[in-house]
């Protein structure tokens, strides 16, 4: 066979060489490069998120304000859909043929192999019917979820709502949220989002090449359980809230009631309100748009976002700060000829001619003259430039929580308006201004904006004789009933307790002495102390204000009621406050039935055009001018309390 026999070795050598190359390559793939192991794990492992139940919110007596209700999302995996009775499915889900095609196209565009949402949040009734037929619809699945549900449809603005996260939320959360997650978007849902949302669990699931789940990985050794969100106990009194919302129906305005001893908010009404259930479910999008375009702006949280000149109720603060400053005392008497004269012949009018008036009577009769003199003393007679004196006055007022956010546990609280001395110096070109330049501040008019929450808080301060706790809506968090430390801090209003008595006596007389502006709403057996007020409204009818606390000794409730465009405070706001206080303290209402009926039946909604809630414009007018320089104002030399033209300055 000659030398050809030797070729056997060459051929065998080639075989060996090729096997060696394969072995070398294998040792690289299997022994050296670790990336393939990682890729294999990435291929099969899917972290499935287990959604925790969101925390439930209860009222102060343990009654449910918000709970979770199961809903059912219908999912579809387009690849698995076969021999479908489209008509039946459409009927059960409540969609038409085009809707079906559109949803299928969306799902297919997302992925033919992965399940995606076909219809979300089917109500339980639709689910029950669908469930019976589901075996006929291959490729369709039901996924349970929970949504928020509000059994009494109350306190919409306090509770707020949740919505699907947007790109910004996801970015800000450092990847905590994923598309499709829900996040609190307003109210308590937003303020306590991190507590309510709970902790998501992770389940490691193995999937096949088509992303179909194939069971748990390593018998669930690396899985974590979902932890339900913390429950919250609200300070709200559900029954009181229901009554307050009923009373405020067809009216624009706010009711805020605070328990003075704790700062807990008992009632938080923003009217007109809306049914919080509207922000849940399949109609949410439509409802949301409807609410946004509602001329009465139900999404506007009036108790802490609407800012009104407080009117007469501010006299309480004036009286207290002036006593503390030593500028007046209980016995100080000013003569009231029916108005306070200031500047060059202008008058700030009173409603009555009171003659010599001392402090208690000034509150009782709401004497503008008295507070004109008081303010003049505070600004002009303190032995210092008036700008500096104004600064002291402003500081004292701010201690009552005016002109700054109180720190309520809801997002979006407004500070109110209380201009600094610089504002006036700038406006008048120099610092040589005095009390006559902004005399209306003395009676809570002019450049002053206070939220109803701040008004109620002032009342809580008076009820407490000198201090307050930050008003808050959540009194305890979770099973351990944790109270946030900032809500247990006692904050002083800077006025000694002894100065409160004459003011409280005056307020008591408003309600309990015949002839007082609040006499018609007095409550038998309970000494309620109150003050009516009328907040000027340059856009139309003035706003009625009433604030009160009761009982006089050891007060249990402090309340502020604002009814927009309702005119005089005693007529509209007073009865509402009275009924709420009596309901809260005695659980009955003894107010004459005709007054009650009048309140329930009243429709004080203005024509949509003028229904803008009044927001005080903060930016000062561009050019400095005298208080009454504009042509409209010059016609009216006299500044009335109730029909003042002063407000036009802000236009």
């Amino acid at each position, binding site marked *: 066979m000659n030398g*050809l*026999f030797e070729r056997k070795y060459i051929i065998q050598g080639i075989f060996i060489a090729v096997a060696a190359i394969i072995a070398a390559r294998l040792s690289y793939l*299997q022994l050296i490069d670790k990336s393939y192991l990682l890729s294999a794990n990435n291929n099969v492992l899917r972290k499935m998120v287990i959604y925790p139940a969101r925390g439930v919110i209860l009222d102060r007596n343990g009654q449910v304000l918000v709970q979770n209700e199961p809903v059912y999302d219908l999912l579809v995996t387009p690849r698995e859909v076969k021999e479908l009775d489209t008509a039946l499915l459409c009927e059960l889900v409540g969609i038409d043929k085009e809707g079906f095609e559109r949803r299928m196209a969306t799902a297919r565009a997302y992925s033919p192999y992965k399940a995606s949402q076909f219809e979300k949040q089917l109500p339980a009734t639709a689910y029950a019917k669908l469930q019976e037929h589901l075996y006929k619809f291959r490729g369709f699945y039901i996924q349970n979820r929970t949504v928020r549900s509000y059994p009494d449809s109350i306190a919409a603005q306090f509770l707020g709502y949740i919505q699907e996260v947007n790109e910004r939320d996801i970015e800000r959360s450092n990847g905590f949220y994923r598309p499709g997650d829900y996040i609190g978007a307003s109210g308590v849902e937003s303020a306590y989002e991190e507590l309510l949302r709970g902790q998501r669990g992770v389940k490691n699931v193995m999937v*096949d090449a088509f992303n179909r789940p*194939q069971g748990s990985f390593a018998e669930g050794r690396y899985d974590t359980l979902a932890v339900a969100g913390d429950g919250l106990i609200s300070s709200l009194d559900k029954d009181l809230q229901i009554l307050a919302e009923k009373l405020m129906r067809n009216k624009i305005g706010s009711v805020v009631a605070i328990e003075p001893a704790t700062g807990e908010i008992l009632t938080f009404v923003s009217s007109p309100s809306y049914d919080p259930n509207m922000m849940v479910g399949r109609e949410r999008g439509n409802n949301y748009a409807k609410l946004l375009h509602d001329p009465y702006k139900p999404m506007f949280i009036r108790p802490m976002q609407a800012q009104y000149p407080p009117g007469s109720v501010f006299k309480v603060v004036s009286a207290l700060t002036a006593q503390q400053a030593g500028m007046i005392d209980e016995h100080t008497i000013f003569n009231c000829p029916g108005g306070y004269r200031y500047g060059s012949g202008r008058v700030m009018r009173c409603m009555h001619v009171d003659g010599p008036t001392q402090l208690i009577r000034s509150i009782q009769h709401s004497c503008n003259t008295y507070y004109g003199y008081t303010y003049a003393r505070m600004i002009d007679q303190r032995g210092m430039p008036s700008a500096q004196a104004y600064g002291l006055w402003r500081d004292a007022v701010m201690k009552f929580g005016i002109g700054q956010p109180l720190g309520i546990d809801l997002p979006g609280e407004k500070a109110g308006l209380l201009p600094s001395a610089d504002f006036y110096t700038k406006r008048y070109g120099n610092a040589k201004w005095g009390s006559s330049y902004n005399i209306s501040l003395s009676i809570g008019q002019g450049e002053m904006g206070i939220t109803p929450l701040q008004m109620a808080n002032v009342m809580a301060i008076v009820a407490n004789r000198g201090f307050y706790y930050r008003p808050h809506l959540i009194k305890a968090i979770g099973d351990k009933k944790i109270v946030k430390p900032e809500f247990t801090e006692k904050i002083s209003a800077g006025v000694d307790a002894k100065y409160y008595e004459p003011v409280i006596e005056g307020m008591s007389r408003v309600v309990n002495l015949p002839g007082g502006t609040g006499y018609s709403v007095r409550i038998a057996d309970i000494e309620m102390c109150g003050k009516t007020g009328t907040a000027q409204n340059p856009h139309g009818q003035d706003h009625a204000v009433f604030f009160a606390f009761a009982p006089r000794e050891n007060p249990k409730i402090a309340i502020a009621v604002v009814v927009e465009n309702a005119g005089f405070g005693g007529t509209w706001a007073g009865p509402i406050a009275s009924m709420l206080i009596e309901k809260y303290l005695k659980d009955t209402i003894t107010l004459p039935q005709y007054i009650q009926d009048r309140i329930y039946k009243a429709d004080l909604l203005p024509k949509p055009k003028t229904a803008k809630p009044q927001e005080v414009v903060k930016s000062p007018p561009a050019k400095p001018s005298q208080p009454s320089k504009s042509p409209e104002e010059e016609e009216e030399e006299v500044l009335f309390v109730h029909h003042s033209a002063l407000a036009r300055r802000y236009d």
Partner: protein
Amino acid sequence: MTNPHRHKLFGGEVDWFTIILWLLLCIIGWFNIHAAVFDPDNPELFNMNTNYGKQSIYIFSAMVLAVTILIVDAKFYSSVSPILYVITILLLIAVLVIGRNVGGNQAWIPIGSFRLQPSEFAKLATCLLLGRYLSTQSTKNPNLGTLLTGASIVLLPVMLVLLQPDTGSALAFFALVFVFYREGYISGPWMLFGALCIMLFVLTLAFNQWVIISVIAVVCALGIYYFRKRRKAITSLIIFFVISTAYVFCVDFVYENVLQSHQRNRIDVILGKIDDPRGQGYNLNQSMIAIGSGQFWGKGYLQGTQTKYNFVPEQSTDFIFCTIGEEWGFVGSMVVISLYLTLLLRIVNIAERQRTAFARIYAYGVASILFFHFAINIGMTIGIVPIIGIPLPFISYGGSSLWSFTILLFIMLKFDANKKGIV
């Protein structure tokens, strides 16, 4: 030749060592097919509707086939070889007309529930006829005419298989070049030349053609300097340079204009010219992930997530080696490779101990075909050759492939057992 392990049976001494290797590979194949199609929800072992259930039947019938082959007289194979060849050619023509198209290849003839793949049997017929033809020629001075006739025997089925078009199976026939080499029809330098051509082909596709030409130019220049005293060497180097440059340009032309686009894609993926893990590269990528994630000891039997959850395509047929690599790791892969290498070397040894040229040539044919399938199939799963759809002998799922390789091997064993007789 007195081996105690060789027994008198089937009219001679059968090479039991090879039979054991064959059996081991079949068993390994069965277990890995089982793993590849394993369904955790349906874990019964013998379900005749599954691939591994059917493979049990194929293995069993292959054993029957093997025994039958060993019983039949050796002369029969030599004498029927021309008829067998003609039948095969007719089947290859028939498949183009009545065949069923599976995965883009018109390669299957359905017979009941079973599908026959004539190209698998064409290898057997070609080896037999080639052996018979070459053995009748004088080996003292191999001439070009014999080479061309022999090549025609090989190329006729190649053409028909290419029409299906089943490039992978067609390429397997080219492995018979080892037969021509061993029989002296092709010389060492020509083999080297062929290897060089293939190498240049791949390099040209992988790199810019100008880079390749520059490298050849530099090599030739160094050679000319080294052989500057020898004019003949310089002349051949210059000729080499001119031819290889022309070749490089040709390759580019062929690649762009002759190859089909999916073939181009597969080559591009292998060469790393396109990175496309979801498209053409998906199969290769998943295959390498499966094998690579097996690490040293493997994930364990039925524990391979890549194969169990269908990430690897064609996992019981062409990509069966992924299951081996993933579940049995480096150790298992080495065992399989060693088994193949041992079998191949054994076949070459068996070939050389044959007394007749026919038996020797046939045995080399068997070695060449098995070698090609082994190298290309495993090579493609680990990304060193383009993805060519050919089965791994004895291991891949499929009756046609198992039977044809078994027949191929056992006819050789029959010749070996019968070598004292006259074929």
